[in-house]
């Protein structure tokens, strides 16, 4: 069961503002999908989870400094910037 309040709570966690109409629509859609996910309750076999399919080992490279992007390149896609820095929203109200 997924209530309208659950949908608002999830949207808040995901940081997506939703309207009342959207909440109602998402509730119906998410409910049917989550119901479908419950098919996994049938799986009783307890095995190790697979996080990653390749048996990769960590590889270290030489610690050599390399040229990074220039400040101009880094800031080129930002709308709000000041004195060569990104300008972000206020963290504290």
């Amino acid at each position, binding site marked *: 069961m997924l209530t309208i309040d659950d949908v608002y709570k999830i949207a808040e966690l995901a940081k*997506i503002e939703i309207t009342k109409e959207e909440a109602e629509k998402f509730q119906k859609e998410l409910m*049917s999908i989550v119901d479908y996910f419950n098919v*996994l309750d049938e799986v009783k076999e307890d095995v190790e*989870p697979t996080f990653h399919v390749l048996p990769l080992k960590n590889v270290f490279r030489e610690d050599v400094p390399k040229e990074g992007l220039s400040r101009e*390149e880094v800031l080129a896609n930002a709308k709000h910037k000041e004195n060569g820095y990104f300008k972000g*929203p206020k963290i504290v109200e």
Partner: protein
Amino acid sequence: MTGKVNGITVEEWKNRLECEKCYDLISELFDRIKKSRLNAYITLCEDEALKQAEKYDSGKVEGRLSGIPVAVKDCISTKGIRTTCGSKMLENYVPPFDAHVVERLKQEGAIIIGKTNMDEFAMGTTTETSYFGVVRNPYDEERVAGGSSGGSGACLGGGEAVLALGSDTGGSIRCPASFCGVVGLKPTYGLVSRYGLIPYANSLEQIGPMACCVRDVAVLLEVIAGKDERDSTNAGRGFKFENRYENHSFRIGIVKEMGGNEDVTGRFEEVAELIREMGYEVGEVSMSSFKYALAAYYIIATGEASSNLARYDGVRYGFALEELDSWTRYFSKVRALGFGDEVKRRIMLGTYALSAGYYGKYYLKALKVRTLVKRDFERAFSDFDLLISPTMPALPFKIGELTDPLTMYKMDVNTVPVNMAGIPAMSLPVGLVRGLPVGLQIMGNHFGEEKIISFALKVEERVKEAL
């Protein structure tokens, strides 16, 4: 060419280059693209491409793909060329660097002609979730081209490129290849560097080659595969097709759990019969875990998406509001206006599945199912060289036909187990049903691309003879 509408092979293109100017051929290609209704491209790189063509004509370009027009899916970063991911969120984003695969294309002299249309952030099966409009199917413009690499499939089928790159998280190369009557390969996880691929679900996705024939797919894979230290999941090995299995007596397994409706299964059975006639051993294999693979896939993919897409905060790049506000309000508003419905749905699903109290029930369970899927494949590959199924369970849908999200998700049933296990798989066109293409999915064991391609070359030839 199998099920080709207007597709152009590398060989055909090179033959024309022998007697015509590359500049003229590329101009002609852009004319065709601009008149086309397919909507395969989001951004065209006409000036740069024509300059490259001129350079080719003056004999200054070397490399295995010199003079060849290549289309790149718009979730793959191209330095100085906007890369939108099919989203309003990245409508004006211009990457300051090239993806590894794009560097490789350039090193081999390819002409990048444009960025192809796709489902928003690669989330979809029909390219209907693109902010830039649906891609039409080259066989029937009232139908979808598949997704999420719909533009890459359609531009090949419609003769608007010779080679294309796609990306495949749960079938996004194979589905449009199947629907547009072209060849597409999802490589083994780790064979191709993901550096510069805008991520959706990192543990599942791979960049892969698409083309109008098997040989061209092999060539493009050779170019893009290989070691790259900027992708920590890169396997550190390249790929060279040597046709070592040309005379191999392949043992082929039909996967019982991967089917489709009558349109598709009818043609699939005819092709299976052809494969038997070719002298190959064909058996059947059952994979009990596949019943759970689709649900597990969507839990893993949306879980990874929910954390991946947290980066879109309207600060460093991407869609931003005129005025900065408090952090929570600004962030939530940017994402409300910048993302489309399907992206919101998947972020919310993933957030839910990973939230406190549900992690064990959904996410951890899904990872256990992944172990079972992997084991089922391992068992199958001890009996068979390759496994086959229909790529898609249905023919290309009418635009707007699939409205319910869950119904759409279920169309990925034959393709997602492959990504869960990280194995390679190809979609090969095997003819038309009611004028629409059907794809054969050929799956191999990890790093089994060589076998898949050798077998696909044989089937491609046989199907052509039989048509």
